């Protein structure tokens, strides 16, 4: 294949160099090797105390070299793409194997891996000036302060980046990719009769400058305001086990923490996940379908081609209540004798790819949200979250609720805030007794921290869970 010459020039390399590096990588008997070249330019602009008064930019450049031998991985990276540096890194990564050199030669022809483009850019960020971006931050500041005189401080941060990838592996496959990312975060501090609360809203998409528009600003200002004012009326509720209605959108954090990580096949092939023996078994009501999707247009978690050369795809983790598929990288797919699912992702060239989620959501059910609430005599409704965590083997997951409401006799009543909810993944999944028809993906700045940081998103229709343990005061 003729590489796109601009990529070869960008990294200052020749195709013959890459063949030589791959050969060295497999010289000690490795079965598979790949080279992941990355060039990322990112920019940030921030507003504090009414002024856009700080900017930053960053360039990151290098190549990660991985050698796989069965389930073993050798990995090294270099920030200099000279042949000498790449050969040195390849020799280090090759040491994961200690066998005679692989007899499989690097193919003489390289076949392009073709993926769809789920992240088209209309207006590249590099075509726009700082001044143009500043106008949006200033407008968002004004829109936010206009909401309420109790707002005392506003902080904003706009980031944009573009990553160029060149990939090449020992199977004779190659691809290039451009990966845009945009994110805007708004935080406001409010004061009411000496009481202080803070709230935030965020949006992130794989888009160009078209990400910024008036509707986005209006939506974010209103969301941060609404999330903030409720806190003045809210308190930590009485804790204990109770029914929980999780509102549509960000409640997808339940899927990410309660089952998503435990479905990542690196944990399962090692036998350390609570779902390790559940493939093909019924794990929840047959009306429930849960998806991990790399194909949602402009989504923060979408991948045209994953970081080890597998085209982006939509994977049913749970189909009709049955555990349908784990989330695979190349290593786990080979272990399970199945096809990779396009979940091999990495933070950057500095990291080896591992199974990671993309956009994880539950498909619609048939209930209405108001009916789910009406079914609860004493419980809580939650729809505003900040973070979560899970113990993969024990299955215990948690997520932190910034705000929500008590449910009393089927109605939302007193606002609540600042509580952690804890449950057990398989039990919580089996305890979902109602799924609404209002699925929504939350497009906030969700970032997963499994060994390395990775942009993801999540979504869910409103669901009723029979019982979770809610933090609170006794």
């Amino acid at each position: 294949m003729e590489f796109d010459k601009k990529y070869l020039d960008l990294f200052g390399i020749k195709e013959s160099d890459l063949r030589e590096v791959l050969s060295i990588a497999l010289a000690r008997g490795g079965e598979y090797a790949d080279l992941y070249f990355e060039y990322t330019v990112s920019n940030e602009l921030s507003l504090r105390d009414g002024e856009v008064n700080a900017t930053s930019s960053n360039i990151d450049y290098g190549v990660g070299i991985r050698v796989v031998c069965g389930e073993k991985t050798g990995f090294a990276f270099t920030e200099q793409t000279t042949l000498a540096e790449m050969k040195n890194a390849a020799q280090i990564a090759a040491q994961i194997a200690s066998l005679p050199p692989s007899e499989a030669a690097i193919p003489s022809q390289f076949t392009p891996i073709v993926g769809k483009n789920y992240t088209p850019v209309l207006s590249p960020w590099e075509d726009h000036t700082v001044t143009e971006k500043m106008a949006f931050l200033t407008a968002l500041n004004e829109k936010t302060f206009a909401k309420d005189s109790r707002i005392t401080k506003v902080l904003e941060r706009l980031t944009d980046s573009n990553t160029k990838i060149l990939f090449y592996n020992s199977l004779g496959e190659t691809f290039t990719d451009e990966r845009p990312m945009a994110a805007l975060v708004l935080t406001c501090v409010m004061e009411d009769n000496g009481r202080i609360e803070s709230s935030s809203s965020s949006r992130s998409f794989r888009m160009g400058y078209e990400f910024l528009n008036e509707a986005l600003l209006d939506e974010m200002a209103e969301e941060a305001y609404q999330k903030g004012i409720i806190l003045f009326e809210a308190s930590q509720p009485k804790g204990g086990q109770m029914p929980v209605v999780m509102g549509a959108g960000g409640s997808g954090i339940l899927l990410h923490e309660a089952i998503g990580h435990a479905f990542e096949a690196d944990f399962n092939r090692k036998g350390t996940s609570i779902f390790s023996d559940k493939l093909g078994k019924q794990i929840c009501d047959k009306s429930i379908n849960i998806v991990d999707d790399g194909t949602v247009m402009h989504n923060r978690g979408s991948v045209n081609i994953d970081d080890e050369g597998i085209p982006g795809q939509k994977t049913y983790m749970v189909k009709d209540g049955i555990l349908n598929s784990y989330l695979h990288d190349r290593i786990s797919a080979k272990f399970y004798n199945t096809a990779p699912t396009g979940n091999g992702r990495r933070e950057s060239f500095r990291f080896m790819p591992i199974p990671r989620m993309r956009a994880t959501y539950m498909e619609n059910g048939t209930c209405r949200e108001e009916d789910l609430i009406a079914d609860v005599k004493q419980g809580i409704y939650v729809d505003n979250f900040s973070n979560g965590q899970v113990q993969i083997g024990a299955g215990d997951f948690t997520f932190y609720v910034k705000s929500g409401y008590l449910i009393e006799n089927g109605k939302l009543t007193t606002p609540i805030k600042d509580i952690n909810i804890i449950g057990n993944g398989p039990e919580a999944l089996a305890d979902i007794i109602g799924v609404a028809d209002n699925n929504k993906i939350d497009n906030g700045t969700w970032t997963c921290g499994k060994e390395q940081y990775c942009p993801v998103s999540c979504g869910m229709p409103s669901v009723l869970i029979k019982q979770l343990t809610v933090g609170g005061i006794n």
Partner: protein
Amino acid sequence: MDKIIAQQALEMALKAGAEKARVVLTESSLNTYSLLDGELERLQHSLSSSLYFQLFVDGKYGTFSTNRMEPGDFAKYLHEAVESTKLLAPDTCRTLPDPKFYFRGEAQDLGQFDPSYYQISPDSKRELLEKLGEEIDRSDKRIISVSNEYEDYRENVYTVDSQGFSGETGQTLFSLSTECSVKGRGDVRPQNFWYDSTMFFETLPLGCGKISLERTLGMLGAKKVRSGKYHVVIDRTVASRVVSPIFSALSGGAIQQKNSFLLDSIGKKVLSEKLTITDTPHLPGLMGSRWFDSEGLATTQRDIISKGVPQTYFLTTYFANKLGMDPTVESVSVPGIEPLGEDSAAKMMGSIGRGIFITGFNGGNCNSATGDFSFGIEGYLFENGVISHPIKEMNMTGNIISLWNNVSNIGKDYRECSRWRIPSLAFSDVDLSGI
């Protein structure tokens, strides 16, 4: 490290139009070897360099960073960063420090760099790891897997600014860790870990394998406990979780944004008299020790909290200017509770009788504006002063100020390898939710 790169980069920034500038050159390397069930599973090597520019241009502020170290590779972008900075709103609070706050004089060696770092062979690292792998007797059929890891890290940082400050630091860190996974009741497969780390290879101890397995097996048979108010003892390994919100609330960023539950608290008694936290940044051989922070501000030993009274905010030059105060230091270096008590966690449980011994936190968060918190917890119910059984699916909820006003005992047993010297802690009347 090649300091000339940073000095040349500083000159480039000034030539590009910055009135003042700071350049930070960082070089680091990381080596990792992992064994899974006795077999080498992962091998990782990395070597990184970066240049970080802070640019003060016409009263405006911008930063630029790159890992492309050749001037020809980043000159264009540096120039663009300066030009972009000119377009911003001015911010008169963005300045280099008043030189009187710089660290001056000869920095004595803080004993943080192992000179043998470059001579340690991969074979000796793997040999150590293999010895660790032999610690666990695999005849116990409950064991699903054992992961052992060796890691070494080196970082050298050189900072230079246009007011004449320059400073260099170097640290090495070596660690061994073990994570065990065991078969529990039903599908449950508890996991737990233990680690040790030192700044010198020859002092890196073995032993974390056995401790890791003990901690993992100790989780078998976990049960939920009834909701209520409990005495809790928080183990030294995780006690920093209830200290860190205090430091966050005293940070300049939180104070300036009025997003802090310790706003206007300096000099006021807001926490228990039992709590005094002192920062001791010049103790040799510790990871957090330093003579100066990233701006070059001199660190000093100081009380952060004295008998329940906050004594200082953590103020960079920027936030100090914003607040009309003198800068202090950007963050804590080696904080510790002083004086230490006399008890271990076991002795605390013995004297309390019944409560929850918290050995891990599972998620949760703390509201920076109010101090309200809610954390998932792991650990044990103890009765009659001894551990009864492990617990699961429980939350600890409250407010950091109220919690610290209910501190009942401060232990003596902080971990030597921790950067924060926080011992086991006991609190009374803590809200826990379970059944």
